């Protein structure tokens, strides 16, 4: 249903409540249109948990961070395809008026787009025209110091509410039609370095999200809140407390400031009712001294029961990490060769395939430049070389602290059977810089900077075959990019670059078919949606949101 019609219906329905008898009697035809319109309006207004489970079947909508629970970020829309992509045009631009990076993945439900911006902004747009419907901005305390920018990666939706994690570590519910605050819950104290930048994930009636703050020595957690009230249903601490399994993987009292944040959106498997949520680096991020042990459950994939938050299994990608290699990349659920798998292109330079039911590793294959591991353990996990540890003088390790990839979401395209991910080849000099823990202060324990000997720093879009781990195709960007990737049933893959281009690639060859210069670097990920039966592809760049379509 079109937005124009929706707002017309809204006005008419509201007015109509009193006027129904007269109008309906006067013109039966008008009344019929009105009834159908009102009916369809109320039918589509509510986002139910069933609609979320089946979101892939309604590709006109983009109802959660990765498009659907599998995390594949792949759309079944095919109106824009390899034969006509070259003719794409910009349809609209929405300027947020903000400074700072836009990392948002917009949602689109029934013709309305919901997105976030820097500095705790949220807004709803007419997805057909880009015209704002409401704008919200939460006041930020003056002494907030979130790591890595005052960013937000998006909203979640259920019923008539959208949900947002805030930079001052609150979880809020906004009225989807007005942007009014419905509830507001403090999850943690922002003054100790806790914040939210993650797009929440709604599962059944729960709003699930993970905390940021791995640079401040927080104790990480994943929370679930009742969508109706904001009451917290469960919390899973990603660093086990005394007496809990895994606690002995932390030397001394280091668990108290152990980090392991959970700042990117996980995925969900409805049949087993399991959440798959990835975690970030142990704190301090680049100094292992003082936190001897594997440091569970940092840099891990957690399989959690969605109702209780109970841990079913975990898989740790990087043990006792000293290079800031958060494992917070989206774990994509994909069925390949009849097997139920999870695929993750990890920041540490390896592409992992894991059995979804057992949590056992299937394969781990390097997909970029890495120098930290040349052996694997009995289960096939890459093992770190001793000499990869940072030193006082500093030495070069690949990948660098930004990783082979980072938070930018990848896509799995079931049509090509390939996993597409933004990758970078950059090595850093890692040197130790011992720091005492002080609440709310940066807690890196080290410094890193790009290694001259590893120049130039290269950026790619890579297509990986999950069956073999082989990089089948790649496109080299002019410089490394922070853009996520989208695939569509039109045989296309979309991504952006640091120079401001939005690019449509042939999914089979990674040859660019079309591009548009947006005038600002991309830190967000693309989505596809449709209004009035017309397909759009949208992405945020610079300080604006762009929508593209066919002429």
């Amino acid at each position, binding site marked *: 249903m079109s937005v124009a019609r929706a707002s017309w219906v809204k006005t008419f329905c509201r007015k109509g409540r009193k006027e129904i008898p007269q109008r309906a009697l006067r013109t039966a035809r008008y009344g019929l249109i009105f009834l159908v319109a009102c009916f369809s309006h109320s039918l589509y207004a509510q986002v139910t948990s069933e609609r979320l489970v089946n979101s892939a079947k309604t590709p006109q909508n983009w109802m959660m961070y990765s498009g659907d629970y599998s995390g594949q970020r792949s759309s079944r829309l095919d109106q824009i395809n390899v034969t006509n992509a070259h003719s794409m045009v910009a349809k609209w631009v929405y300027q947020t008026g903000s400074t*700072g*990076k836009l990392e948002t993945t917009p949602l689109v439900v029934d013709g309305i787009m919901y997105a976030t911006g820097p500095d705790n902004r949220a807004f709803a747009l007419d997805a057909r025209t880009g015209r704002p419907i409401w704008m919200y901005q939460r006041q930020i305390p003056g002494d907030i*110091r*979130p*790591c*890595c*920018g005052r960013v937000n990666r998006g909203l979640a939706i259920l019923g008539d509410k959208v949900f947002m994690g805030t930079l001052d570590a609150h979880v809020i519910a906004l009225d989807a039609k007005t942007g009014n605050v419905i509830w507001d819950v403090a999850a943690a104290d922002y003054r100790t370095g806790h914040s939210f930048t993650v797009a929440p994930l709604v599962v059944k009636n729960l709003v699930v999200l993970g905390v940021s703050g791995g*640079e*401040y020595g927080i104790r990480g957690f994943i929370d679930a809140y009742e969508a109706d009230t904001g009451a917290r249903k469960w919390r899973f601490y990603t660093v086990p407390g005394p007496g809990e399994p895994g606690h002995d993987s932390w030397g001394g009292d280091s668990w108290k400031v152990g980090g392991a944040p959970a700042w990117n959106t996980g995925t969900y498997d409805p049949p087993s009712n399991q959440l798959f949520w990835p975690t970030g680096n142990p704190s301090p991020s680049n100094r292992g001294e003082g936190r001897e042990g594997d440091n569970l459950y940092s840099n891990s994939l957690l399989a959690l029961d969605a109702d209780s938050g109970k841990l079913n299994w975990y898989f740790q990608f990087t043990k006792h990490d000293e290079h800031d290699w958060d494992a917070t990349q989206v774990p994509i659920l994909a069925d390949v060769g009849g097997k139920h798998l999870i695929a993750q292109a990890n920041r540490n330079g390896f592409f992992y395939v894991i059995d979804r039911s057992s949590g056992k590793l299937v394969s781990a294959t390097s997909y970029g430049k890495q120098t930290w591991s040349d052996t694997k353990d009995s289960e096939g996990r890459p093992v770190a070389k001793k000499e990869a540890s940072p030193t006082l003088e*500093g030495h070069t390790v690949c990948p660098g602290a*930004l990783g082979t990839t980072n938070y930018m979401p990848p896509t799995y395209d079931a049509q090509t059977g390939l996993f597409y991910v933004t990758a970078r080849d950059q090595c850093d000099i890692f*040197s130790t*810089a*011992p*720091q005492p823990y002080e609440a709310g*202060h*940066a807690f*890196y324990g*080290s*410094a890193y*900077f*790009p290694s*001259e000997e590893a120049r130039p*720093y290269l950026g790619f879009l890579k297509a990986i075959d999950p069956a073999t781990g082989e990089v089948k195709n790649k496109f080299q*960007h*002019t*410089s*490394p990019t922070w853009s996520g990737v989208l695939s569509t049933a039109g045989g296309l893959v979309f991504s952006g*670059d*640091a*120079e*401001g*281009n939005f*690019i449509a690639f042939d999914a089979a060859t990674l040859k*660019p078919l079309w*591009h548009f*210069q947006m005038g*600002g*670097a991309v830190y967000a990920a693309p989505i596809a949606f449709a209004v009035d039966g017309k397909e759009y592809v949208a992405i945020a760049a*610079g300080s604006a949101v762009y929508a593209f379509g066919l002429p």
Partner: protein
Amino acid sequence: MTRPGALCLVIVLAIAARLEGQNPLAGDAKAAKAGEYEFRINCALCHGLGARGGGRGPDLTRAQKKHTHNDAEMFQVISSGIPGTAMPANGTNGQGVGMTDEEIWQIITYIRSQEVKTPVAPQGSVAKGKELFYGDANCSLCHMVEGRGGRFGPDLSGVGGSRTREAIIESVRNPSRRLAWGLTEATKEFPQEYESVTAVTSDGRTIKGVTLNEDSFTVQIMDSNEQIHSLQKDTLRSLTKSRESAMPKYDADVLSDKDLGDVVAFLTSLGVK
């Protein structure tokens, strides 16, 4: 002392220090050590390990600085950045977290501890160097200083305030070793460099020059006649880039050590006010 009392005292001291333009941690060796680590985390990316200058940022061990004359100004520069330059405001470089006031003072303490107290006596003649720059050494064919000179190479008006003598000598003797940073776009991680480029157009024209900017689909080139070319990559017959600088190598046969000393004396005198 009670906690609020202590806090008040700290605030009063801090305000007093700010008013006086003084560093409350000046000369404190422990603060300098903490500042060294903060420097590595927040500043070394551009200013280099040991504050001796990196690809982008000036050498901060020079006692004379371009933008700051005292601790208060340095605090201001670290807090707010320098508009119109690559120097970002505290906490806005997208990597790492912002620093507290105390941490900024620690960094200032560290920088002060690294400064070379007695500036090296100028070697060479500034006047002779200027003559060579605009004359026989042919520098000004490509480089501009305060509005006079060419455009093909980087403008050197501020080079004295941002590069050490050693770095300038290296760039004259071996220009390809480290190409200068060029255009810095606000949101781009790495600025363009003075890469040499040769483009052959579809009609067979050859354009040689340096890249002003580039993305995956287009390249903007300045040739040695200072003409700017906007080229679509997919229409070119070829595009070859090289890490060999367009600047000729000034070895001792071309520029004697004495003449080099004079040119460097002139260049190091620039941009320091």
